[in-house]
C-alpha cells in the first residue's frame, strides 16, 4: 500500500472561482468535516502538495499560474477539478475572459460536479483521487527500480 493515500497533502488554487467552491473546500478543513482525519493538510505550497484542487475556470491569467503550480508539484500527483466552473466553465462559459474548464490547461483526474460542490462531494472526490495516486505511486516506484 502506498503511503501517499494516507497522507495526501493538497494545494488549493482558485482559478476564477466565485468563492462558492473555495469556501466549501475550506469548510472541508474545518471541524465539521475535518479532512485531516485522512491526513489531508492544506499545504498552500505546490512543492509539498500531492493533490492540486482547482476551483473555478481558467482565464488568461490563471492559466499561466495553473501551469506553473502544476509543474512545481513533484510527481506522483493528481488534479481535482471542483465545481461546474472548473469542470466546464459553468455559467461563465461564454464570458469573454474565460477559457473554460481547467482540463484545457492541465490534465484532470477527478471531476467534482456541483455549483457549488458540497464538502461531502469534495471528500468523495479526494477519495477517488487517492486511487489514482496509489496507481501512480506504484508506477513511479517501478520506474525508479528500472532506472
Amino acid at each position, binding site marked *: 500500500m*502506498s*503511503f*501517499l493515500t*494516507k*497522507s495526501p*497533502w493538497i494545494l488549493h488554487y482558485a482559478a476564477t472561482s466565485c468563492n462558492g467552491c473555495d469556501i466549501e473546500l475550506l469548510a472541508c478543513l*474545518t*471541524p465539521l468535516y*475535518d479532512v*485531516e*482525519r*485522512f*491526513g489531508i*493538510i*492544506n*499545504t*498552500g*505550497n505546490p*512543492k*509539498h502538495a*500531492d493533490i492540486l484542487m482547482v476551483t473555478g475556470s481558467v482565464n488568461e491569467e490563471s492559466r499561466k499560474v495553473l501551469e506553473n503550480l502544476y509543474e*512545481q508539484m*513533484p*510527481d*506522483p500527483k493528481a488534479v481535482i477539478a471542483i465545481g461546474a466552473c472548473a469542470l466546464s466553465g459553468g455559467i461563465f462559459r461564454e464570458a469573454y475572459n474565460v477559457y473554460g474548464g481547467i482540463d484545457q490547461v492541465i490534465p484532470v483526474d477527478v471531476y467534482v460536479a456541483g455549483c457549488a460542490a458540497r464538502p461531502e462531494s469534495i471528500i468523495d472526490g479526494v477519495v477517488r483521487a487517492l486511487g489514482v495516486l496509489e496507481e501512480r*505511486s506504484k508506477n*513511479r*516506484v517501478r520506474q525508479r527500480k528500472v532506472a
Partner: protein
Amino acid sequence: MNLEYWGFALAFIVLGPVVGGLLAGIDRRLTARMQSRQGPPLLQPFYDVLKLFEKDTTVVTHLQTLYLWAFLFFMVIAGVIIFLGGNLLLSLFAMTVSGIFLCLAAESTNSPYSKIGSAREMLLMMAYEPMLIIVPLGFFLVVGSFQVADILAGEPSQVVQLLGVLIGFLFVLTIKLRKSPFDISTSHHGHQELVKGLTTDMSGRDLALVEIGHWYENVILLAWLYLFFGPLGLLWALPIAVVLFFAEVLVDNTNARLKWGTTVKASWWVAVLFGVTNLLVLPFI
C-alpha cells in the same frame, strides 16, 4: 562514561525519530481536539514522512540537499551529546550549527519566501540563543558542571533554584517548537504569510529530512526539559516534562502569531528578567 550512556546515545539515534514522531502525532491530535476536530491518526507524522520518501524530490539547487544533510547530522550530534551524558553547552552549540545549516538550505534556493523564512529563523535564533545559553549556565552554577550526567545526579531542589530559568526556557521552547505566538519562520499547521517559510522550496526526501530533524530536535528539547526535573527520578521527571511539553500545545492554540520584532524583544526581556535575574539571585537561594 560508562556503557549505559553509550546505550542511551544509540537508543537516541535509533528511537529518536520514533519518539519525536509520536510526540508530533500526539501534538496534532491534541491540537485537533482543542479545535473540536477529530484529528488525524496518531501515526500520521510517520505516514507523512514515509510518503515524502515515496514522492519525487525536486530541488532548486542540488546543494540544498547537502545543507540539509549537515542540518540532520548536527542535530543528531547534539542529541548524542546529551544522551552520552555529555556537555550541555556543547550540545547547544551543535544545535545552533544545525539550525544554521537549515537556514543555509533555505537561503540557497534563493526564492523570496524561503529567504524571508530563513531570515526570520535567524532572527528567532537571535531571540532564543541568550536564553538557551543561560540554561546550561544555570545548571553549571547549581551543579558545578555542564555534564548532563552530573546534572542528572544533582539535587532534586535544583528545579526550584532554577525556576526563573525554567520559565524562560519554557518561553523559548515555544519558539523552538514553532508554536504560536512565535511560529513566524515556517508553519506546521495553520497558514502563514510566508507560505511554508524555510521549507517552501523543499520537497520529497529533502522535506522528510527536515521533518526527521525536527523530530530529533523535539526529543532533544524534551530531554532539556527533563534535565530540570531529572534528579526527581524518571517516574516523576518524565511525566512532568511531557506535560509541560504538551502545555505548549495549549499555548499554541490560545495565541495569535506575533511579529518578529515583538518576539525578539520579548525573548530578550524574558532572558533578562527570568534567566539572568535567576542566576543573580542564585547565591541567595
